[in-house]
């Protein structure tokens, strides 16, 4: 029996495989692409994703039959997805670059970026040159800039993050110059890293940092060029290190895209922008 029953032996795994394949196909066939709803896919900046998600929910409730799907992954990915057609709208938490001028960018809000220290660190302010010196590894001890005798832990952002690009641009640095001890991704991660290390220095979004600092997280926001890092100075345009939160499209926005982008710029979403600790366009 063991040797003679060749047929079922050979057929069985193939049958199992075919049944599985059939199940998958059946599953796929059950859900034809739903064309009855108008859908926008928005991908990009993880800083903007929670804000745009909230805008999308409000937009859906006002325009029945529309769907706004927001995916996070970083500004660079947002731009790339718009270029290869994976997304209708990209989110970039920076201004468009010169080589991206074939894309259309619309600013929906602003965000400031500032340097943060642990609140136990006695230093109250640093000059631009001192910050630059710390990040390129020339200054390695807090003593040099008038602080305690302790080595500095430099926290840098990961490649592809627009906060990094903004920071590098402001201090006219290249990422290769930076001598980082810790490389982080999202804002909260940066804040948690600095809050857990009294000798660390990092840079993050002002809105997030301000929220955490007023909710008992042990960090201090440093002023830049003597201008305090607050949402107010970002709104007034006086804070030197700020960035526009931009929605990016491949062609001039039309149809549902245009309706959504206009909605995202309108005063109807100001409360949402404030709730995510960003700065609305006007007033």
């Amino acid at each position: 029996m063991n040797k003679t029953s060749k047929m079922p032996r050979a057929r069985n795994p193939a049958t199992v495989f075919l049944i599985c394949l059939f199940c998958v196909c059946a599953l796929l066939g059950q859900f034809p692409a739903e064309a009855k709803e108008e859908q926008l896919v928005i991908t990009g900046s993880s800083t903007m994703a929670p804000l745009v998600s909230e805008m999308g929910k409000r937009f859906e409730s006002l325009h029945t039959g529309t769907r706004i799907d927001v995916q996070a992954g970083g500004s660079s990915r947002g731009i790339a997805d718009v270029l290869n057609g994976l997304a209708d709208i990209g989110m970039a938490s920076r201004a468009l670059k010169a080589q991206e001028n074939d894309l259309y960018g619309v600013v929906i809000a602003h965000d400031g970026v500032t340097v943060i220290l642990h609140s136990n660190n006695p230093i109250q302010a640093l000059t631009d040159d001192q910050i630059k010196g710390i990040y390129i590894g020339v200054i390695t001890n807090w003593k040099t800039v008038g602080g305690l005798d302790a080595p500095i832990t430099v926290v840098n952002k990961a490649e592809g993050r627009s906060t990094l690009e903004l920071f590098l641009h402001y201090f006219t640095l290249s990422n290769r110059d930076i001598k980082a001890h810790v490389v982080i991704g999202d804002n909260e991660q940066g804040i948690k890293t600095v809050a857990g290390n009294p000798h660390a220095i990092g840079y993050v979004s002002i809105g997030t940092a301000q929220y955490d600092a007023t909710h008992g997280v042990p960090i201090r926001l440093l002023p830049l060029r003597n201008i305090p890092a607050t949402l107010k100075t970002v709104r007034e345009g006086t804070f030197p290190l700020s960035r526009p939160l931009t929605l990016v499209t491949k062609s001039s926005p039309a149809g549902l895209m245009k309706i959504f982008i206009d909605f995202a710029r309108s005063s109807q979403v100001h409360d949402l922008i404030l709730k995510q600790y960003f700065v609305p366009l006007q007033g």
Partner: protein
Amino acid sequence: MSRQSRHVQEYGTTAIIWMAATMVVIPFLWLIGDLLWNGWTHLSWSFVFSAPQNAGREGGIGPILMSTMLIVGVCMGVAVPMGLGTALFLSEYTRHDHVLGRLIRGSLDVLAGVPSIVFGLFGNALFCQALGLGFSILSGGLTLACMVLPILIRTAEESFRAISREQRLSAAALGLSQPTTIRTILLPAAMPGLLVGGTLGLGRAFAETAALIFTSGYVDRMPESLMDSGRSLAVHIYDLAMNVAGGNPNAFATALVLVGLLLIINLFSSWIATRWTSLNQLPA
């Protein structure tokens, strides 16, 4: 060797082994304690069933829980039959040194060691883009299925191989066909092992973040079909903890739900395994 030094050696070894075992328990208790301490007060039925608001700072995790169940459901629905089939092929239909068998085993071992972010990128390229499924629960589930298949197949194969040769020979002597042998002898005998493999696979699927963020996506709406994008519990925890200011309390509460879910699955599967064994051990 003097008697005294033997005593020292014996006590020393005992102490070290006890210490090692205790130190393994401490992180687990610490973790559970930390989660309970920070998350318990935010946990309620309405948290488990309502929709998230204000980027997840307020509201609950209802749609996210639903998406997670669907993603894991798709994953196990595809992975279990494929895994069982492959394991049976490896243990019952080929000799241990068969070329195809060795090729499958080798590739499974490599797959088992691939970091989950690589599965995420692969799933994004294959399911989301090449097959046109987009960011969807289906893409996420299929990506996870690729990820848990190695665990499922290797544990299942081991449990089939652990069954004694005499049982197969007796079945053959009774004239049972191969499918009948599998159904009535091998599957029941291997069931406890299969359950362990399934639980490991389920655990890995439930806890996955990196493979899902680029496949099933970030949308926290209640899913209406498997083609909708849906955020999983682990992705939600990651976003709340790392990307949303003031998201910590709900991140802890969500983590508590996830760990609770995994504990329930573990207890349930070990309960089935013991019941199964006692049911199948008939008195002589």
